[in-house]
């Protein structure tokens, strides 16, 4: 496939697509309506292109991108499952997509009902009391949860609690959110089984006695392992006066099997763009609703969807609420997709999803374990982490392996995360893959292990068949070129 120039390099002066409706009110000079000093001197220097140019450009760009619809995407921690098309159709219904956020509740009965019920479903799935649907993503849920925890401690006069414990395997958003909430992060070590080191937890709790605000963790954790000590961990943190925050990025492993609420967590977020398959959209939008235990309900942001005999309505938050965490009602059209997904799958379907996700991960793990290091060799949940240490010794890194995978219409696993595994490769197949796909991925991983020994050069020079080769990241960071600029690159249009 040939390259594709920038939209700014296309078109010609004067080209335009008259997409707006024809003006049907008097065409008064603008400066009779607004003093000229407020107005632009020149039109914004946007592209001047025709419709066919726009269509071809973005169609071609799309063809330079890989998504779940093209092939296997076992990107650990991201739950890249099939995104049902029906969900897209429902989110595009004019009754949802063409709603103004400030209409009177009487004109939004379907929408508020949907959110009201979705809140209940999420509460049930996570084992929490109530839920806010405002957060736009997991990290937004995290900061919202931490703000709630903070407000809770303050309501009890415990303003001194400023420490958040975070396992060393945690995702970067966890410590970043803690900082944003004005907390100090203290890292918890993992033990040999890949779970929280109980001894280290004990000493850390003791060390920060009286100052523990919360523990944030995933379970299954970022190694894909379920921490069996979760009840004890929860008990100890609670005894130390801390709250437990559940990072739900890995919830695809547990639906109908176990619930964060039952494990002892006080706040839980779900990444609906992962677990509930609202598509990830190349990086967003997502939705990161959080559920809270009973004692934290008064602190939830508002308004919340409510219902009485006359119908559904938005209920303002109470006096202890932390307040809004964004404008309007959350990423509504994402929530419509999640609602559709939950209704389509039902309770047994969600359980079957998690069971199947776990099975698929274990199946691949057992298929590749002979060829790669498996730092924690026990049943995994919905994903697992390999190490390419053995390959690294032969000069082939996890990154190289990822690049070689690109040659086979398969998206590589997450690499170099979690940080606690050398040359980590985090593999999450999800439940929507066929056995054939899993088998061919296993075969590919084995082939690459063989190539590492027999023809490492093939790997080091990979990818061979992509539209671009390995890109110079250093150059990009050292001399940032973050936008097109007419002066530097004139649009050469004849």
């Amino acid at each position, binding site marked *: 496939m040939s390259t594709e120039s920038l939209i700014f390099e296309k078109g010609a002066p004067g080209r335009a697509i008259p997409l707006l409706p024809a003006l049907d009110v008097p065409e008064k000079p603008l400066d009779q309506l607004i003093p000229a000093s407020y107005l632009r001197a020149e*039109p*914004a220097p946007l592209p001047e292109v025709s419709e066919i140019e*726009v269509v071809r450009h973005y169609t071609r760009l799309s063809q330079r991108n890989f998504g779940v619809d093209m092939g296997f995407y076992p990107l650990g921690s991201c739950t890249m499952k099939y995104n049902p098309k029906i969900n897209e159709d429902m989110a595009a219904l004019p009754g949802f997509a063409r709603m103004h956020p400030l209409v009177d509740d009487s004109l939004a009965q379907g929408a508020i009902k949907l959110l009201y019920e979705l809140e209940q479903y999420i509460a*049930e799935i996570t084992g929490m009391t109530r839920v806010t649907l405002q957060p736009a993503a997991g990290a937004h849920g995290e900061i919202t949860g931490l703000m709630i925890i903070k407000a809770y401690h303050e309501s009890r006069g415990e303003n001194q609690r400023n420490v958040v414990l975070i396992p060393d395997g945690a995702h970067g958003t966890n410590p970043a959110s803690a900082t944003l909430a004005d907390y100090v992060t203290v890292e918890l070590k993992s033990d040999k089984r890949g779970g929280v080191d109980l001894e280290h937890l004990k000493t850390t709790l003791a060390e920060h006695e009286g100052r523990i605000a919360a523990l944030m963790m995933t379970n299954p954790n970022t190694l894909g392992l379920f921490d069996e000590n979760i009840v004890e961990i929860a008990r100890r943190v609670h005894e130390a006066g801390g709250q437990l925050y559940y990072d739900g990025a890995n919830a695809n492993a547990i639906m109908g099997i176990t619930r964060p609420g039952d494990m002892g967590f006080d706040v839980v977020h779900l990444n609906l763009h992962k677990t509930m398959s609202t*598509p990830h959209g190349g990086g967003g939008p997502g939705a990161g609703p959080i559920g809270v235990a009973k004692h934290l309900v008064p602190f939830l942001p508002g308004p919340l969807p409510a219902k009485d005999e006359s119908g559904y309505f938005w209920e303002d938050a109470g006096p202890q609420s932390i307040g809004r965490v964004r404008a309007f009602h959350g990423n509504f059209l994402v929530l419509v997709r999640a609602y559709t997904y939950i209704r389509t*799958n039902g309770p047994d379907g969600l359980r079957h999803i998690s069971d199947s996700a776990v*099975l698929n991960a274990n199946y691949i793990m057992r298929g590749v374990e002979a060829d790669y290091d498996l730092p924690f060799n026990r049943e995994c949940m919905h994903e697992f982490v390999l190490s390419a240490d053995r390959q690294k010794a032969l000069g082939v890194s996890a990154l190289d392996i990822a690049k070689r995978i690109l040659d086979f219409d398969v998206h590589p696993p997450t690499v170099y995360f979690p940080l606690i595994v050398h040359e980590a490769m985090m593999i999450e197949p999800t*439940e929507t893959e066929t056995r054939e796909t899993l088998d061919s991925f296993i075969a590919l991983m084995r082939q690459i292990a063989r190539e590492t020994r027999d023809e490492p050069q093939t790997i080091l020079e990979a990818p061979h068949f992509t539209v671009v080769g390995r890109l110079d990241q250093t150059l990009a960071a050292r001399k940032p070129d973050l936008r097109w600029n007419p002066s530097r690159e004139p649009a050469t249009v004849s």
Partner: protein
Amino acid sequence: MSYVPNTPAEQQAMLREIGATTIEDLLKPIPADVRLQRPLKLPAALREMDVRRLLVGMAEQNADLDQYISFLGAGSYDHVQPSIVPHLVKRSEFYTSYTPYQPEYSQGMLQATYEFQTLVCQITGMDVANASLYDGSTSVVEAALMAAGPGGRGEVIVSRALDPQYRATLQTYARTRGFTVREIGLEGGITSAKELRDALNKDTKAVIIQHPNFFGALEDVHAIEKIVHETKALFVVTITEPASLGSLEPPGAYGADIVAAEGMSLGSPIGYGGPALGLFATRNEFVRRMPGRIVGKTVDDRGQTGYVLTLQTREQHIRRERATSNICTNQELLAIFTTVYLSALGKQGFSELGSQCIRKSHYAQQAICALPGFSLAFDHPFFDEFAVNCPIPVETLNAELRDRGVIGGYDLSRDYPELPNAALFCVTEARTREDIDTLVTVLEEIVGAAK
């Protein structure tokens, strides 16, 4: 229905292959006392057609903007979405992909994002933009945090004419993070320059105004800029109605340090307010302090141009607790909506967008204010929204309008007790003259009948 492809028989075979008998064998690590011992209490699964019927029924219980004639703005704007926009953005190569961490597989998304960053700069006149934040309100939060710096203390001044929901959101974060938000009042519908001058002090990290402001009025941005920049505070301009950039002077031209805006009305569906699109643009010198994902241009090992995520050392997955922001998932697909939209509208179209909004809103304003009992709340230039004092309570008025298929202006008394009878009408290019004339006729009718 289920999206799990493998049949029970296949799953059995797979289990056998890995030496297990049932899936329960794999779930052993989960202690029994945290296992859920019953099915989830959720409605039973529905098949596709049945779920479709259910959702269609729910959607029909909402007012959609093609069925009602709406004059609501107040932070969310109904603009025309050209047909090509969804056709292109909804290509599954885009929406079923993840964050472009593997650039060789993501050149489409990366290049489109680079174009997005450029387009945001082109309309705002700023140097550099990121790949999106959650929404306009959290963009404002990030602007305040960036201004406050890693320490995160100090004070941020906001205009009372900043969108009330944005002010509320900022308050929430400020309380937790530990900085102060000081609100300054209004004079004739715009930010009081006097109050601003009085409020500024050595702890002021940023001054945040909205332009056009929440009442649709145009702020005296040049004057404000001068006042702000007499101190070290950053001048943050918030825009909730980005169509205004089609006609108004861009913030880059009047000295803004940060533009924190809501971009969803540039091509994305209005969708009950979400997913939204936080725009964030700033000056070159702040680039390494910017929050959020950024795409940069580079070359590959074959010498070809290519695009990558860059300056990642600002971000949480690298810098963790010292990151400039905790954002990970952003609003990427909406950035692509905006990219295609702005490219398609182009230079002429975007300019026409602005002028149509101005002309139509002024046509409407004049007609409404010619009705007895209606008058402009503020005598100030505006873009496509204007506050009107009404002869009867706005709530009553709007209820009557609703019965006639019209969604009236936003009731300002909900947020501004000092404006008990003012409605904020918004008129964009998506309303026809006939729509406006209908509104005027109906207003006349209602108020006539109320007498």
